[in-house]
């Protein structure tokens, strides 16, 4: 019994620490690396670890989405960009130390502000008294997300009528449609923009 009690620590906290350290550590690695390909690699690891945090917070669908769209899609695009624009292999661009000092001072100030804000509200600080008691059904959010995107908030059914279920404003159907069209337009536009035109005479550097 004593043995068990000694081992009975909070796995949630343990894995939170694990993923949080990975996320922050690799984010800092992105900042302090000058080699662009390594930066991309660290960014992959950082975003992948933050997907772990999403899973931990019960957002399975968003976590998988993060892995699929962000890590598997956006970052591959980014690495494509790196490969296409690398003039010499393993590009390195140095930043002057003055800029570093400025940026770090401002960043430190911003971080201080945000950290202060993070612990300001008591309700945020206390956490869930017993996360293990949150029902399994509560974590099944995929259907709810899908319904939410089609304009039906199945998670708010038991809310008092009139409080949230205002017609046409409770779901996310319109934003979903807008964002879909937006994505399409952006992709077409980006493809057009990257496929540029240039003066035939200037074979070398820029028009």
């Amino acid at each position, binding site marked *: 019994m004593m043995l068990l009690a000694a081992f009975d620590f909070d796995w949630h906290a343990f894995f939170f620490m694990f993923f949080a350290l990975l996320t922050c550590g690799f984010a800092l690695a992105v900042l302090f690396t000058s080699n662009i390909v390594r930066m991309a690699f660290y960014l992959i690891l950082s975003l992948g670890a933050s997907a772990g945090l999403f899973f931990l917070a019960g957002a*399975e*669908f968003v976590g998988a989405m993060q892995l699929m769209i962000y890590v*598997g899609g956006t970052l591959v695009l980014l690495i494509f960009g790196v490969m296409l624009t690398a003039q010499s292999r393993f590009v390195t661009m140095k930043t002057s130390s003055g800029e570093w000092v400025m940026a770090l001072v401002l960043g430190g100030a911003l971080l201080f502000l945000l950290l202060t804000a993070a612990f300001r509200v008591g309700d945020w600080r206390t956490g869930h008294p017993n996360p293990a008691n949150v029902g399994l059904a509560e974590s099944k959010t995929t259907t709810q997300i899908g319904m939410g995107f089609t304009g039906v908030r199945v998670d708010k059914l038991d809310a008092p009528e009139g409080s949230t279920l205002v017609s046409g404003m409770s779901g996310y159907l319109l934003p979903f449609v807008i964002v879909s069209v937006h994505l399409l337009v952006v992709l077409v536009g980006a493809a057009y923009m990257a496929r540029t035109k240039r003066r035939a005479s200037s074979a070398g550097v820029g028009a």
Partner: protein
Amino acid sequence: MAEFFQQIWDSFFQTSSESPGAIAYLVAAVIHCVLIIHVVAVGALIFIWMERKISGRIQDRLGPTRVGGAFGWLQTLADGIKLIAKEDITPKDADAMLFKAAPYVGFAASYCAYIALPFSDGWVAQHMNTAVFFILAVLGIEVFSPILAGYASGSKWSLFGAMREAAQVVSYEVPLGMCVVVPCMICGTLNLVTIGNMQAGSFTNWLAFNDPFTFIVACVYFTCATASVNRAPFDLAEAESELVAGFHTEYSGLRWSFFFMAEYGSMFLVSGLAAILFFGGWHGPIPIAEPIAGVLSLVVEPLLNFGRYVVGFVVGDLGQVTEGVVATQIANLMGCLNFLVKGTIGVTVMMWVRWTLPRLRIDQVMTTCLKYCVPIAAFGFLGALVWQVNDLPTSNDMPVIGKNRFEVRESWVYQAEKELRTTSGDQKSSPDDQQPPFDPHQATGSTELVPQGAFVMKGGAR
């Protein structure tokens, strides 16, 4: 599974706590990890041997015959020992850190995806609601391994391989996703265990035979899966006649073999996914597993009870095995074999294709994806959708599929009406009021489908 080990722990040390303790979680997690890594590593061992034998037979020769007996069973093991003993070379021009890390990225991704892959009813490391999505997402990460390897190698051929791989895999994710959506749509869930269980019964219940469109989609899925795991005729990233060896040109020894473990791991993964999504998962073509398991349990259950009785003398009374658990587990074991056989058949087909067809060119690979696979997958998706919406007859006799779809649709209508009434201020009752409110938590239909006897990870680590 954690609860199960907690039971064992409790029974041995006479402890009891509300939720499973840390040790139980740890033991369960370690066992899961070990089991899965055996599927990947031992699976690669067997598949590489199989590939040699199959390619040998296809090419009118014998394949390995010496190491470990007449069939060369241990050939891969011997190769593995050779690879371990080989010098691990890092080229001078390589980015050493990325070069060394790249093989592990691919292997980790391939291994990670197995977490959500059920091997039988409930036999899954982590019972996820978004299992299909998770597997696709993690498979998508695997592409970084060749990209990083190709870029970090400092070789032009490697870079070519990396670019080809990136372009190909990212493109093929689109039709692959479209194909995977179809079974999810029919079953109304992303949960692989549920999807598998919705195909119980005879092979006519398999989703590939649900309607003509799902069959088309199953074929497109297999094509795209072959492409996304880089197997011939889509193995451009390692095309030996063009790019020397593609992204792994500069690798040797153990690191090189990690690429291959990842490749064979993903091959089985996509084949297994195909088996679950389209070909009945762990259900055999004829529903004989449960009767057989019932008969077998008549023998096994008394033996187990006797064992518990004997052990009970030492650690205190353990009681009897819960009624029906043994039969369920034996049926699951047979289902697991079923699943492994189906996955292996998929892998074998990939090998057969590899040793028969020439390789496509990069532009033809892209054409196949964008001009053929995507439209056909979209057509199949729309067709299956129309089929479902119009309730056209399917070969599937499981009532739950129709019921599930009905529930989701009805809830939509119900909700819309409710909102309309709220807006118009008409609070009076309508005939629909007799309908019970829709319970969103039942919508995925998964809870009632997991057999009650299964103690493996039903809701696990939360």
